[in-house]
């Protein structure tokens, strides 16, 4: 079982090496090797587990040396955060790092706890490792090409791309550690590691806006971590164990000492997954270069929160905590999709859609039944691949067009065909039937009805309508006729970016086609591990119907396309009341002069824009969370 320590430690090693290498070509080379080895490592782990029968394994019961390293790492993180807080004059924030570290130190040294397993490899962690390893490696491959392009036309930003890529590796190592840990202190350390990494990545460009946004991300994530640290202390003090599985079991049994810690962990997961009221950090993180947005917001960091909530799901089902969490998740799903309608900045749309999808996953976890976890797991898988593809594509588009406004992507299919096709596939994967999101919505709707949860039902139903609106209008933009006939743009997307995106597009298509297999072989057994009940979420008949629909979606458009290619069509000019100038791009105005035709989408910024509804929604969500904690504290004390 060398694969597990390899996956956790090797990325840190690569990052360390990258810090000392200065030449960009060598940096790129090392990054490719590192990424491939990590992907291979994940593959080996997966194959090894499948051969070994996929039983959960627990390892590393005696860990004095590793514990010291981890504690040392926590001190390093605390010092780093304190130093940067003082450097940028935000002294209060460092308290959010110092106090929790002190609490954890107290747990480590003052509270007696037994020796339990520190690493657990079961199906859920396997799934997370696959997502992190595969999508993360593809993003690193992309990042090498992207960063050189980025610095070529952002000359004002100091070129620290070696440091940037090193941070990406540290991030991956921390994420592996996070999903494989079954000890609460290790979990906490890797949690803080990801918070600090995202802080450093967001602040990469060192502009005033970047610094502001990175500190916002830092304090929100540290705040969640601080609450978590308190919860861990409380649990360790009363239950004398630091085992994550004991934590879950205590919660499932309704143990009163587990109630508050579970609420704190769920709260921390909400901050990490940028749910209301903590969504603004994710939106602010868009100032960072694209690979960090892709890594943070699709493949890894935000999924950390969801991973924790999935672990907690059996302990949360039918409890106050679970209901409140599900409510906040559903509310975020609806409201974030409303705000996405009003956005024309592509990265902001992607960020808001991430928040929205995470809301749906959080709601699934909060309800905590096998059905909803099934739905949530597929949402997570599909979201990871398609969102990462979309972010990478938008990044490449920005490098080429020097704009990431959706309105500038009008007719992109005609002047940047490859990027437009990938974007189309990515967006289709997000919401179009019969792709992943759809089947998760089906299961989530049914689960909401089964649980008699009217609020969640309404959130999903209305949220589904708003979600399809903002995605559809983007898709429509891509295939429209361009505004100008004489658009010649040179596509500067590098080879490695194209390869990375291509692999992800193929992966997405494969996921759609193979998802029944994935369900039977992987997700259903995973649910059994978590809930100890078996049963299919989707009936056989429905699965066959889905496969049929998928086949139609893949077969019909190309078939009709080729059928019509041979048919001679009489092409006429678009109707413009008789004043079309002859090329569908301009017309004659009432003064007899030429006017360019310009068409844009609906945005409704003054009805559902961020400026209008973010603050009321944050207040409402905060109120719900305060109520949740009051109830939990009332029962506990």
């Amino acid at each position: 079982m060398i694969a597990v320590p390899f996956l956790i430690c090797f990325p840190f090693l690569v990052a360390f090496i990258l810090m000392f290498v200065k030449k960009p070509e060598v940096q790129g080379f090392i990054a490719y090797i590192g990424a491939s080895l990590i992907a291979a490592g994940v593959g080996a782990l997966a194959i090894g587990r499948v051969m070994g029968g996929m039983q959960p394994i627990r390892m590393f019961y005696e860990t004095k040396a590793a514990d010291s390293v981890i504690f040392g790492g926590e001190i390093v993180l605390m010092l780093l955060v304190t130093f940067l807080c003082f450097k940028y004059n935000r002294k209060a924030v460092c308290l959010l790092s110092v106090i929790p570290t002190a609490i954890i130190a107290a747990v480590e040294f003052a509270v007696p706890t037994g020796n339990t397993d520190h690493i657990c490899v079961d199906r859920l962690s396997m799934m997370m490792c696959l997502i992190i390893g595969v999508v993360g490696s593809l993003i690193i491959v992309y990042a090498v090409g992207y960063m050189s392009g980025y610095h070529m036309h952002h000359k004002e930003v100091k070129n620290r791309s070696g440091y940037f890529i090193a941070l990406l590796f540290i991030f991956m190592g921390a994420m592996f550690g996070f999903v494989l840990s079954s000890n609460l202190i290790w979990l906490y350390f890797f949690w803080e590691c990801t918070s600090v990494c995202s802080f450093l990545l967001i602040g990469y460009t060192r502009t005033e806006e970047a610094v502001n946004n990175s500190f916002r991300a830092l304090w929100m994530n540290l705040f969640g971590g601080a609450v978590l640290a308190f919860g861990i202390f409380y649990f360790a003090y009363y239950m004398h164990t630091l085992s994550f599985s004991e934590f879950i079991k205590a919660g499932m049994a309704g143990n009163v000492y587990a109630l508050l810690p579970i609420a704190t962990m769920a709260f921390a997961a909400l901050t990490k997954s940028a749910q209301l009221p903590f969504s603004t950090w994710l939106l602010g993180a868009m100032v960072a270069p694209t690979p960090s947005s892709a890594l943070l917001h699709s493949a890894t960091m935000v999924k950390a929160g969801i991973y924790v909530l999935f672990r907690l799901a059996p302990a949360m089902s039918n409890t106050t905590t679970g209901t409140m969490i599900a409510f906040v998740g559903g509310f975020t799903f609806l409201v974030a999709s409303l705000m996405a309608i009003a956005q024309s900045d592509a990265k902001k749309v992607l960020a808001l859609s991430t928040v929205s999808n995470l809301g749906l996953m959080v709601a699934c976890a909060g309800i905590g039944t096998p059905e909803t976890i099934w739905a949530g797991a597929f949402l997570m898988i599909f979201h990871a691949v398609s969102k990462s593809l979309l972010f990478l594509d938008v990044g490449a588009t920005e490098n080429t067009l020097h704009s990431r406004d959706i309105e500038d992507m009008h007719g992109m299919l005609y002047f940047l065909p490859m990027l437009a096709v990938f974007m189309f596939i990515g967006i289709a994967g997000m919401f179009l039937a019969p792709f992943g999101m759809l089947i998760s919505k089906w299961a989530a709707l049914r689960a909401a009805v089964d649980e008699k949860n009217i609020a969640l039902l309404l959130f999903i139903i209305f949220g589904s309508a708003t979600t399809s609106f903002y995605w559809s209008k983007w898709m429509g933009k891509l295939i429209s006729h361009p505004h100008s006939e004489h658009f010649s743009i040179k596509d500067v997307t590098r080879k490695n970016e194209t390869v990375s995106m291509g692999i992800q597009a193929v992966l997405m298509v494969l996921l759609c086609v193979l998802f029944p297999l994935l369900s039977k072989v992987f997700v259903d057994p995973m649910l059994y591990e978590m809930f100890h009940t078996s049963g299919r979420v989707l009936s056989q008949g429905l699965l066959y119907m889905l496969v049929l629909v998928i086949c139609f979606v893949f077969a019909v458009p190309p078939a009709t396309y080729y059928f019509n290619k041979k048919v001679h069509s009489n092409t006429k000019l678009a109707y413009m009341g008789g004043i079309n100038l002859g090329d569908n791009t301009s017309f004659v105005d009432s003064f007899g002069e030429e006017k360019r035709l310009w068409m844009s989408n609906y945005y409704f910024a003054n009805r559902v824009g961020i400026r209008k509804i973010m603050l009321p929604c944050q207040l409402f969500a905060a109120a719900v969370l305060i109520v949740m904690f009051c109830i939990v504290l009332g029962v506990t004390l």
Partner: protein
Amino acid sequence: MRMKIISVILYIVFAPIIGGLLDGIDRKISAGMQRRVGPPLLQPFYDVSKLLQKQVISVANAQSFLLQSYMVFMVLTGAMFFAGSDILLCMFVLSTAAMFLYFASTVTGSPYSTIGANRELIQMVSYEPAVLMACVGFYLVDGSFEISRIASSQLSSIIYLPGVFAAFVFVLTIKMRKSPFDISTSHHAHQEIVKGITSEMGARNLAVFTITEWYENVFLMGVIGLFVVNENPYSYLSAVFVILFVYFLEILIDNTSARMKQFKMLEMGWAVALVLAGCNIWVLMLIK
């Protein structure tokens, strides 16, 4: 299994005929309401066959294949419905079909077509909540999304779902693009913005669009009937009466109201879904 295949084949073959007849009845009754004689009953068939005989005319070459994909997915939706499959999945496939229609309008780059396409999206957002509520209502009452189970329940679903039914009939006006909700395209007037998504559909493409509308109408009437049918075979007779009544209601609403603003339509569609359907479902959740 054999019944399913027979139902699907019957749908594919007869739905355009029934749809066209419904269209003809619509025009005849509308004419009567407007004190006109109106066209012959079979006029829609004459129109479509004339359109099919014309050259293929389009503004963008992609229109043809997108509209034909739209038709195929609409037929798939209806086929899945009449084969007794999952109603929620039917609605999702219907939304995929609607996407192809939206693409067919956007790809032209024509101003009126694009305006119509934007408005079509607003129409979709307006009716989707009530449609999903209908599916959820069926699940709540009959314990399954399977249409074959719903159609063979003991009591007609409409008894438990009056609010949901009312909301669905309300958004039916939006779905069928009848005044006051003929916002993305209108059957009557022939002005630019009003013609919307069909502005740039000519000749054969318009024929494909019209035939698809017929398939869609038969499907929608089928959903109306689903509210009424139960295990008793006589319920199918009452379903036909209800369908004809609802269709007449749509014609009546069409002829007696003026076109509304699109955001009013959105507000009303959502309000109806929330209040009528939402309260119905909430009450059902509480008492079941």
